């Protein structure tokens, strides 16, 4: 079905003269930037100051409304519950379950309406008050539509119960008359109230027979002349057959009874029983389903769908679902009487009465500014197995398309995005890739937030996103010289190259300052030390210092030597290591064995031999002196250790 060519919504950018200028723009994750410019300039600008503003444009303002927060949060819970309950039930109990889900959604909408109403009432600022009131109306419309969909689609009420449900629906949603009803009922002498008969009419129109009869009795007691008429009317009302919810009668039985009753009413009317009281005569006509009589009470019904249900009640109470469309169309035509054209809400309700599900969803998508409603409703209808799937490019079916739209919208919000994650999880075709694209854009203002995002990615095996986020955090930490933080992020990212880089920085810092920063981190590296050679060296080197500090000299010595011989230490660091060996060589006690000393000497020679002549020339006095000192210390140690090792124990 081709969509009507509706005019796309126009958004005005203030201060920009579209006749003389153009707009440049850029998408962001949640917003769009728009700015006035002039394209096609060959050389440059205009030579005068620009008064241009940069505009930040947003699509969905609803997610920023505080009072709607509850709606998003609680419906999220219901949604997840529905997805997970798939295989538990079948058949009739499944339907009951789905109806319950639908009712839950509706009660969330109503709760939100309440909150919004409170907010509207307490708002001082008229603009804010108006905004809240608008929201209340919209929520009310949503609940109205959802309720009807629940009756027709989720519950799929059959002829009989259908009418009862529709009556409930009307009673719940036509509240314009509530004040009037209250006023009359609470007055001293209701039957003397000028609006008395209006209220009786209201009850009759809404099928509230007991309440109508109650008022009639008041009239009877107050007005002796009409006692007889009241009694008859009361009797008719009492006897009116209504469809039952249980299985106490078949439709045919009910229709038969109804036919007899209808004829009885007809007789009374034709006999002129109510001729002297126009109000009661009109009520009798209504009972007979006289369209004109009902239409006269337009003011009390206020909507065409009220008119529809009243009509059905009094002319065709056993209406079948598929017959609704004819009555609906004619009701709307009769009610509006050609004076006005249908509003969006009317079109939506009409589509529902016509059982055009796709039309309902499409119209709602157009009429509502936020995807919340259509996404959740469509999901529910899909669970009722009512939607055929159309294969398409942006999602495997309409349900997924709408959920993707809704969840994408949530990601613009600094905390609601977390709800969006779950929605994406339940979109089998594109959910994962959408989540990947959105989640990496979430601003990582704090470590906590980054960890939260990471957890979500790790749970879903989104390895690339994990790596990327850790890298971004590591980079940020490095730029701010927080080496410890940078290192732990690179370890988490399993980024060996970066870990090497940061380890180098640590080592460089050590050389300059003579001490390590972030000792805790380095001491507790554990197996992650193996991520990169440089990192391993850093960890081991720190261990060497620790051992030295604890005076475990021989272990320290062994470690130090191993760092060089196993080539864990980079060549550039060997000089530093050898210099670190000096205090060990100078100890009173001999620490390095002969073999170890030979090794050390070899390392030193390798180091000096490795230098080119030019480098040796450039070496300053300090360098040469260091080498000389080392050679001396090594030689002395060798001498001592040879003696020690050569001496027999105890001799």
């Amino acid at each position, binding site marked *: 079905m081709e969509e009507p060519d509706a005019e796309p*919504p126009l*958004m*005005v*950018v*203030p*201060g*920009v*003269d*579209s006749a003389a*200028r*153009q*707009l*440049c*723009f*850029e998408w962001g*994750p949640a*917003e769009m*930037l728009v*700015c*006035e410019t*002039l*394209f*096609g300039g060959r050389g*440059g*600008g*205009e030579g005068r*100051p*620009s008064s*241009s503003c*940069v505009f*930040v*444009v947003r699509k969905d*303002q609803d997610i920023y409304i505080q009072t709607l927060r509850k709606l998003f949060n609680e419906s999220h819970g219901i949604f997840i519950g529905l997805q997970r309950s798939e295989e538990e039930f079948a058949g009739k109990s499944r339907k009951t379950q789905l109806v319950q889900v639908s009712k839950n959604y509706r009660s969330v909408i109503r709760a939100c309406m309440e909150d919004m109403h409170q907010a509207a009432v307490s708002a001082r600022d008229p*603009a804010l008050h108006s905004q809240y009131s*608008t929201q209340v*109306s*919209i929520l*009310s*419309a949503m609940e109205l539509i959802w309720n009807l969909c629940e009756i027709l689609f989720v519950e799929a009420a059959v002829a009989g119960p259908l009418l009862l449900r529709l009556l409930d629906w009307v009673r719940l949603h036509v509240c314009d008359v509530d004040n009037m009803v209250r006023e009359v009922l609470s007055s001293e002498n209701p039957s003397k109230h000028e609006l008395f008969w209006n209220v009786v009419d209201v009850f009759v129109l809404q099928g509230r027979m007991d309440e109508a009869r109650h008022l009639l009795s008041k009239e009877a007691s107050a007005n002796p002349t009409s006692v007889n008429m009241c009694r008859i009317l009361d009797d008719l009302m009492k006897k009116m057959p209504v469809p039952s919810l249980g299985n106490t009668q078949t439709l045919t039985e009910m229709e038969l009874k109804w036919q007899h009753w209808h004829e009885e009413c007809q007789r009374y009317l034709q006999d002129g029983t109510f001729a002297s009281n126009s109000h009661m005569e009109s009520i009798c006509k209504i009972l007979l389903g006289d369209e004109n009589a009902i239409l006269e009470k337009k003011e009390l019904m206020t*909507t065409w769908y009220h008119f529809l249900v009243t009509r059905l009640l009094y002319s065709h109470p056993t209406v079948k679902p598929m017959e609704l469309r004819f009555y609906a169309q004619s009701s709307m035509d009769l009610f509006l009487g050609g*004076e006005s054209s249908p*509003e*969006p*809400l*009317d079109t939506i309700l009409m589509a529902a009465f016509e059982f055009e599900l796709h039309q309902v969803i499409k119209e709602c998508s157009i*009429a509502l500014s936020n995807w919340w409603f259509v996404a959740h409703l469509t999901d529910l209808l899909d669970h009722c197995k009512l939607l055929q799937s159309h294969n*398409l*490019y*942006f999602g495997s*079916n309409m349900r997924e398309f709408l959920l993707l739209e809704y969840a994408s919208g949530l990601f613009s919000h600094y905390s609601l995005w977390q709800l969006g994650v779950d929605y994406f999880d339940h979109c089998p075709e*594109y959910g994962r*890739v959408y989540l990947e694209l*959105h989640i990496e*854009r*979430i*601003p990582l203002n704090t470590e906590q937030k980054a960890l939260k995002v990471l957890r979500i990615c790790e749970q879903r095996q989104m390895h690339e996103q994990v790596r990327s986020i850790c890298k*971004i955090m590591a*980079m940020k930490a490095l*730029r*701010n010289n927080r080496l410890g933080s940078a290192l732990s992020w690179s370890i988490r990212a399993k980024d060996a190259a970066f870990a090497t880089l940061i380890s180098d920085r640590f080592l460089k810092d050590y050389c300059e300052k003579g001490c390590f920063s972030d000792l805790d981190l380095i001491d507790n590296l554990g197996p992650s030390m193996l991520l990169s050679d440089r990192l391993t060296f850093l960890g081991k080197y720190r261990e060497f210092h620790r051992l030295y500090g604890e005076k475990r000299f021989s272990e320290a010595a062994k470690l130090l030597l191993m760092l060089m011989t196993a080539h864990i230490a980079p060549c550039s660091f060997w000089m530093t290591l050898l210099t670190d060996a000096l205090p060990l060589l100078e100890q009173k006690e001999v620490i390095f064995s002969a073999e170890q000393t030979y090794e050390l000497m070899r390392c030193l020679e390798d180091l000096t031999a490795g230098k080119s002549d030019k480098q040796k020339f450039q070496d300053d006095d300090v360098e040469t002196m260091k080498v000389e000192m080392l050679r001396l210390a090594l030689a002395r140690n060798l001498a001592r250790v040879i003696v020690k090792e050569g001496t027999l124990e105890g001799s």
Partner: protein
Amino acid sequence: MFVARSIAADHRDLIHDVSFDFHGRRMATCSSDQSVKVWDKSENGDWHCTASWKTHSGSVWRVTWAHPEFGQVLASCSFDRTAAVWEEIVGESNDKLRGQSHWVKRTTLVDSRTSVTDVKFAPKHIGLMLATCSADGVVRIYEAPDVMNLSQWSLQHEISCKLSCSCISWNPSSSRAHSPMIAVGSDDNSPNILAKVQIYEYSENTRKYAKAEALMTVTDPVHDIAFAPNLGRSFHILAVATKDVRIFTLKPLRKELTSSGGLTKFEIHIAAQFDNHNSQVWRVSWNITGTVLASSGDDGCVRLWKANYMDNWKCTGILKGNGSPVNGSSQQGIFNASLGSANTSLQNSLNGSSAGRKQS
């Protein structure tokens, strides 16, 4: 859609480009006043200018952010025939207190003989790379092999497009099935029917970029070009801004292992074409999921295009200036619903405020 904020940009001449960073918390603007400004978004949503400095000796046409994995890095290109790479230096604490940050130039790319019209960073999985294009018809691809040393950039590839270039777009797809790919648009307007969109693909065999495809149906000057984000599709989507808005799909056919160096051949279709701007279209850009395309034209409007669940493309919104002056810079949220928002119409029909409801 609605305007949430308006920020007085304070440039001393025409602004040519605005750019969001990856997370949408920083933005950069560039202007004919030869400077670039960087703005930061604070916790409460206000935008503050944290840096403003002269970047070139001519109008600055474009400014773009690198992926945050590489740090805080910007690139700009200008009429002065150069492109430049900038890095933010974490400042002294008193700088931070004043809310200012400091950007240093890491390199100037001076190989072009003419105005450099576009500069774009490559997708991060390729490395720290950027491409520039110039009016002299050459696309240049530079790489910084050491991401920690942004002063070292080497010119890796020079692609001669034969026609003056106006725009480039990297294919963002990180799928292993897709080689690095770059689309180039030309705004050459001498009378000829040469293809104004060319697509170059990197070939592993030759270690070079070679022309994989040319869109023969685009013969009018092209002002902007944009690959859509890839949602795991096997084919590519490319939007072109020319005398109208065009969306092409490029489906890779079996890779031919001939002497053409293993380049992919594509099956090209036009998915949509819109002439609603009724004038030259200057910019096209995709949102982050590639579901909405925005275009800006000579008619002073920005239009949004979206495909519905039946895969029909439609205009879903228009942004247009109305000429009325703004009262200075407004950092308050502006709650006016857009004109003609259907939001209010639903409310109206429920309130029964339409004329026909109440008996007159």
